[in-house]
């Protein structure tokens, strides 16, 4: 297994900067995810690690060995592409065996290894099928088997689940996680699906416009987003603007005529303009001891989403989205009072 280090990696396509001075370390055995909206440069970064693209600047290290100038075929990575890239003119067996044949593994050993890996991904018995005779989920597993059979130091997965239907996606997600833990292989994953990233990853790098906005565990990026982009990209949020009025164990912010207490992520001082980030799930109708973090307003829109009530409330400083117990008595056009615990209120410097 291998530790991957990116140092100042930059890649431009014409005027578009797909990777903008990316520096980070991916630990041995880690499940690491690049998460971001489409076009943010996450796939490019993965391709730079695979050796399929050459960086304009910066270096790529595998276990402190500089591999920047190594062609892809020398890097010994296993990769699964978004479209699986199964060779349509080869059977499942030939697809999976290809990497072994390249490595000149003896025929008998190829047979046993392919058998083994197909069992691992639960595809035994399908050796002689052609890709077009397989379901999407099966194709995805063949692609995975083909990458794993060569026992790569590093597994690269480019949105491998995005072409599957929702139910299968969740199943495969669990299988993938379990497999990765079992094999202990360093895995780099690319996705735009934040839930997928949260479930799978040890750590997540959130990317936007070619830059890494934040690297952290799922909890960190959710609870302590380092900027507004991360805060709004991960999970659903309401963002209000306010001014810092006091600093203590917590930070006190005034939004219009509402006083809000929360946790500042960055250094702020009294008088600073700040964003107050609120997550819908953190709201409740239970009253807090202090007379802070109370929001009251008219319900402008509401919907039931199976056991929960979603509502948008117009308050003096803007609008907030809340998710409440569906037994809460609320109705359109009526006033509603909600509270949020100060530890869950994120305050970001504007």
């Amino acid at each position, binding site marked *: 297994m291998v530790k991957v280090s990116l140092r100042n990696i930059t890649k431009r396509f014409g005027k578009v900067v797909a990777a903008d001075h990316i520096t980070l370390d991916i630990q041995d055995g880690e499940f690491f995810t690049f998460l971001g909206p489409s076009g943010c440069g996450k796939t490019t970064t993965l391709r730079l690690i695979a050796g399929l693209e050459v960086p304009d600047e910066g270096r790529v290290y595998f276990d402190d060995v500089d591999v920047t100038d190594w062609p892809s075929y020398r890097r010994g990575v296993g990769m699964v592409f978004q479209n699986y890239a199964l060779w349509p003119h080869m059977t499942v067996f030939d697809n999976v065996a*290809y990497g072994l044949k*390249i490595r000149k593994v003896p025929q008998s050993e190829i047979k046993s290894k392919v058998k083994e890996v197909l069992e691992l991904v639960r595809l035994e018995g399908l050796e002689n099928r052609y890709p077009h005779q397989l379901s999407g989920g099966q194709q995805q597993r063949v692609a995975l088997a083909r990458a794993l059979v060569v026992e790569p130091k590093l597994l690269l997965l480019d949105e491998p689940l995005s072409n599957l239907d929702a139910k299968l996606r969740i199943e495969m997600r669990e299988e993938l996680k379990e497999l990765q833990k079992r094999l202990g292989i360093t895995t780099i994953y690319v996705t735009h699906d934040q839930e997928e990233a949260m479930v799978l990853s040890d750590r997540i790098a959130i990317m936007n416009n070619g830059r890494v906005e934040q690297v952290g565990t799922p909890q960190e990026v959710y609870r302590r987003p380092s900027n507004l982009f991360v805060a709004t990209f991960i999970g659903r949020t309401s963002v209000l603007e306010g001014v810092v009025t006091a600093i203590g164990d917590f930070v006190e912010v005034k939004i219009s005529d509402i006083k809000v207490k929360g946790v500042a992520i960055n250094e702020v001082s009294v008088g600073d303009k700040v964003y107050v980030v609120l997550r819908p799930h953190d709201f409740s109708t239970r009253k807090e001891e202090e007379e802070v973090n109370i929001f009251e307003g008219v319900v402008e829109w509401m919907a039931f989403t199976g056991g929960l009530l979603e509502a948008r409330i117009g308050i003096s400083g803007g609008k907030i989205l809340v998710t409440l117990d569906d037994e809460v008595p609320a109705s359109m056009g009526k006033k509603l009072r909600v509270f949020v615990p100060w530890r869950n209120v994120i305050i970001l410097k504007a």
Partner: protein
Amino acid sequence: MISKSRLREVKKSLDPLIAFQYIFSYFYLILFLLLPIATIIRQAFLYNGAFSLHWFQKVFSDPDFFSLSPRGGMFFELHGDTMYIWGIDHGYILNSLIVAATVTISASIIGVIAALIIARYDFPGKNVFRILILIPMLATPFVNAYVIGKFFQPRGGLLNFIFYDVLHILPWRIDVNGLAGIALAQTLAFYPIVYLNVLASLMTMDPTMEEQAESLGAGGFKLFRTITLPLSMPGLAAGATIVFIFSLEDLGAPIGFIGYSGNPLARRVMSVYVFDDFAAAVTGAISPITSAIAVILVTFAVTGFLAIKKYVTLKTYATLSKGGRWKPRTRKLGFKGMALVYPFFILLILSASIPQIGVVILALTDWAISGLAPKSITFEYISRLFTDPNVVRAISNSLLYSGAAVLLAVILGSCSTYVIARSKLPGTDALDSLLTMPIAVPGIVVAVGYFLFFTGFFRGTILDPLVDPALLLIFAYSVRRLPFTARSVFAGLQGVHESLEEVATTLGATRFKSFFDIVIPLIAANVIGGGILTFVYSMSEVSTSVTLGALREDRGPITFYISQVIYGTAAVGTVSVAAALCLLLITVQVIALAVSNYILKQRVAFLGI
């Protein structure tokens, strides 16, 4: 900084495979396309050892080449009981342009109408018409014009006999010959090119485009003019321009008319001028005037080509030819519509198939010597294909050249398109243009260029056409239809997602290995399709075959033999042998069509358009 990173990119692209393909493609196209043309240009602009417009001034001041006032000819002139439609002589240059423009316009009108009907209407027998309408594409070099001449002959011609002598429908006998004859023969031969290109545009057009316009109130001709026609412009522009270029370079129709009737006006086009001068080249030189004419020919063709370049380069072609997932809009044709459509198609197909029908009759009967109508069936001429040593030699020459050309074209086509599709090397766009350029270079110009360049720089070697034209014919064949061969391979590459190769490289395969393990098996059908295309084309290629091929009689291919017969160097009656050879070419084409269509599932391959 940028250049450094660009350098890295280039370095990554330059693995041994790409490097070889890149160098080979450029080497081949420079040696067998650019340099020969450059040599013509050099000779045309050189006078007394210095750059000069002398030869062009000479050409344009000579009314024999360029004359705004008419220099004789007959256009709808009645003499006695015969209406002469020969055309008016304005000198070689203007004659060629007038004929090409006439052919382009009339072929476009016929092609668009036919394509619209086929693409948008359903009626019984449509699929039969769809096939029959392509008959003119079957190769009948030289013999086509000969047959048309025979049909229109004022006395003894079948058409005049039926409509004047027997039915008395026509008020006079009609004699279509000379420039008008060339225009007619070319229109009938080339309209399927426009038809096919426009049809392709119409079939790949998103039907919602028209439906949206209809929902907004556009219908009938308004819909056609505002939506349908503009959206099929790429096909029409490409088809029309190819027709224009084909007409300019065509030797078959003029030589056919010259051979049949010796009509002086049939000689008065640029391609024949170059051809005639080439005949004198056996003595070792081509006059600078011919080079100047060749430069003028290329200039016209290239001008036309540049106008449509954006439609025909590989990369744009690929985006144009995508789609077609939807079912094109068709409507059932009503009774009134059928009353118009059936006569249109029947008349069109009958008149356009005259050459092919004539070829079959000539080859299988005594028509060539029997006068008005054939009297008996004979297999004598067919058997000559296997017994006459001259004919056998011509056939085996053609087979040898075409086979070798296929090999080269396929290698060149795969190499160059792969570089264009996959590498980020500088010069790939130029390579794309270079690959497409042969469309715009008349074959007769290729012949002159090869002659000047290879006799000039390779005198006495195996590449000297005066020593042996065989190799040059092979190279000419491989280059001349390269745009279409390359397009077939490129279409295949478009269907091979790059990730299929990338995943192989992540598994340890070099580019070389993944090219042969992954790419080649996946584009095999396209490569074979491209190869078939080159083969069919090479077998029936005219321009270089009858010029370079003439330099050594024992090296002449099929079309050279046919031209000899039609041009009058062979004895009477052997025109039937020429027809038998055409029948052989047609057979090759039909088999190729069947293979492409039913085995490779590629519809476009054999036509090369």
